[in-house]
């Protein structure tokens, strides 16, 4: 028997400088999400290195990977991934609980983050009582709360209509421009990527097909040769 080995991400070498807005493009199964999970520290490569902020994630302990997810990266998902039993503000402040931030401080930080995404009402509603756009704003606020350097977005507009999708994308671009956050966004919509990203990376079958990069400055974030 034995499982056949699938190389989801195979021999890819990418460097992303700080402050860049990168779109990972590809059809489903192209390995773009797997690559994002590697950078997020949710998954580990079987070989190769994933270096974020000078640290090789492949060599970090489970504990240190959790710290990486907590402080260095923020994540936004297609399906929002909010905890249904918690209110908006509780969802946003949840990472602060894991970071052991004081209660009083947590509340003001969460309100501040929610203001940044344009959601200052309905804070004590549960996610199911919100529209898709509001849910994605909540999840953006949660991703921002620990002031990460890197925002990873996995099809952030996939579950939204085009109007709210645009609103969310404008917010993300705003973070990139005003806060200097590095953005890595996974999408299969070529048009959306072309509208917002400064660099387009095309993947197919786990391999790098095209890298239309026009900006190349100081490298703080890089990812090279992963296999998973």
């Amino acid at each position, binding site marked *: 028997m034995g499982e056949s080995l699938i190389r989801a991400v195979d021999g890819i070498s990418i460097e992303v400088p700080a402050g860049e807005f990168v779109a990972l493009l590809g059809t489903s199964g192209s390995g773009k999400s797997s690559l994002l*999970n590697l950078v*997020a520290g*949710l*998954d580990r490569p079987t070989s190769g290195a994933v270096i974020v902020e000078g640290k090789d994630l492949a060599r970090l302990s*489970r*504990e240190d990977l*959790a*710290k990486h*997810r*907590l*402080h260095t990266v923020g*994540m936004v*998902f297609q*399906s929002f*991934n*909010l*905890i249904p*039993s*918690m209110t908006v503000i509780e969802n946003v402040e*949840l*990472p602060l*609980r*894991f*970071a*052991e931030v004081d*209660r009083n401080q947590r509340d003001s930080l969460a309100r501040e983050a929610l203001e940044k995404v344009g959601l200052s009402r309905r804070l004590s509603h549960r996610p199911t009582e919100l529209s898709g756009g509001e849910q994605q704003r909540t999840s953006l606020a*949660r*991703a921002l709360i*620990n002031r990460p350097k890197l925002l990873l977005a996995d099809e952030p507009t996939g579950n939204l209509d085009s109007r709210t999708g645009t609103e969310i994308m404008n917010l993300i671009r705003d973070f990139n421009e005003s806060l200097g956050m590095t953005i890595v966004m996974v999408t299969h919509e070529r048009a959306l990527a072309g509208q917002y990203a400064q660099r387009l990376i095309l993947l197919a079958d786990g391999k790098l097909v095209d890298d239309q990069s026009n900006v190349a400055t100081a490298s703080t974030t890089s990812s090279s040769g992963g296999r998973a």
Partner: protein
Amino acid sequence: MKAYDLAELAVRNLRESVLRNSLTTIGISVGVASLVAMLSLGIGLQQMATRRLVKSGLFDTVVVTSRRDLRNFNRGDDQGGGPDPAESPALDEPSRVKIEQLPNVVEASPDLRFITSFTYDDKPHLTMVAGIPGSYRTNDAFEGMQGNFFSSDNAPEVILQKSFAADLLGKTAKPGTEEVPVADLAKPLLGKEMTMRYAEQVDGNRASGSSAGEPKAPDVASAATNYSIVSHELKLKIVGVTDLDPDSMRGPVRARVLLPLKLVQSLHVVQPTALRDTTQATSKVPTYATVSVRVKDPAKIQAVEDSIKKMGFNTFSMLDATRSLRRFFTILDLFLGIFGSLALAVASIGIVNTLVMAILERRREIGIMKAIGASDGDVMTLFFAEAGVMGAFGGAVGVALGWTIGRLINAGTNIYLRRQDLSPEQIWFVPWWLVGGAIVFAIIVSLISGLYPAARAARLDPVQALRYE
């Protein structure tokens, strides 16, 4: 995570599926309740037994005999390698006073008993008489007694044992027939007088008896040595009839006719030891066959016994009996505890089940928490906290439930006892350590149950958990 945040999250998560978690918590409560009920009954029974035994005077009493008395309790057993019996001290009044002055000794009363005859209704009755110190008023030998205890320590009064009362009335119960109730025996006897005939030991120097009572014509039996024996009669008023089994182990109370001790002492009745001490010609002060020493606290018995042995006397106590009693109750408590814990063990399986179900249900939630930065430890402690909170709630409710069950059993037992014409008893007792201990035990059992689910939740792969919608 901080402890407070952790507790808050745990309670919140438990409230999310309130029915399932409540049922699990009730399971723990029932387990704790059965444990508390069992142990509180065990402890209550032990306390009751101890209370009764202390009242019986058996466990705080050391019986002292002279080594000269070769018929001692530990025949052939060398007690502390003292001097030869012939050289050992006599158990006389000065020794008794010395014993009474030992630390932890409440009193040392001589065991005065003799066989003599009584006349009631012109019929003679021969029986054993004993002197009872006033402190025996609270002894449980006098529980259920008709009439009263002696009005004073030297009153010319008498308490009868019920079989002797039956003899006096000619109502002796035949074997196999039902006993006459003690109240029926007491009614015609209380307040009546009966006459005791006894032999006074009169010092050789004194011509005739000068003791209490109404000595009649002194007929001298012997004046050969240092003393004479003079026969007397004394009228006694019957004040009480005890409901006591004559064959029970009761120390000084083991006689069919009881007199106040001071009265018996003042009568100078010839004691079996008198003759022996006379031949050895040691002293003219009264000597005793045995002295009963009451100790402040049963735990001090060994120390008191040791110091009396050092004085050169033989001792005997029921110390070993209390030890085996304590062992019996320890084993009883252990077994009750094990049976009580069985329900808690079943409840702990419920916790494991609930938490494993929760992991399956909250798979995605765990994945989200990990994605936004929760460590393995965070997830594990969260599940631990949930198990602990269920344990704490279940423990608290269980203690209250167990307390109530114990109380109900106690109340039920007392209703039964009252129907049987017996005095009510406290057979149930919940000490504070049991309250705290049961709750802590419930929490520990819950945490152990949470061990596997928590570890499983912690190892959950976030990518897998988030993959499926």
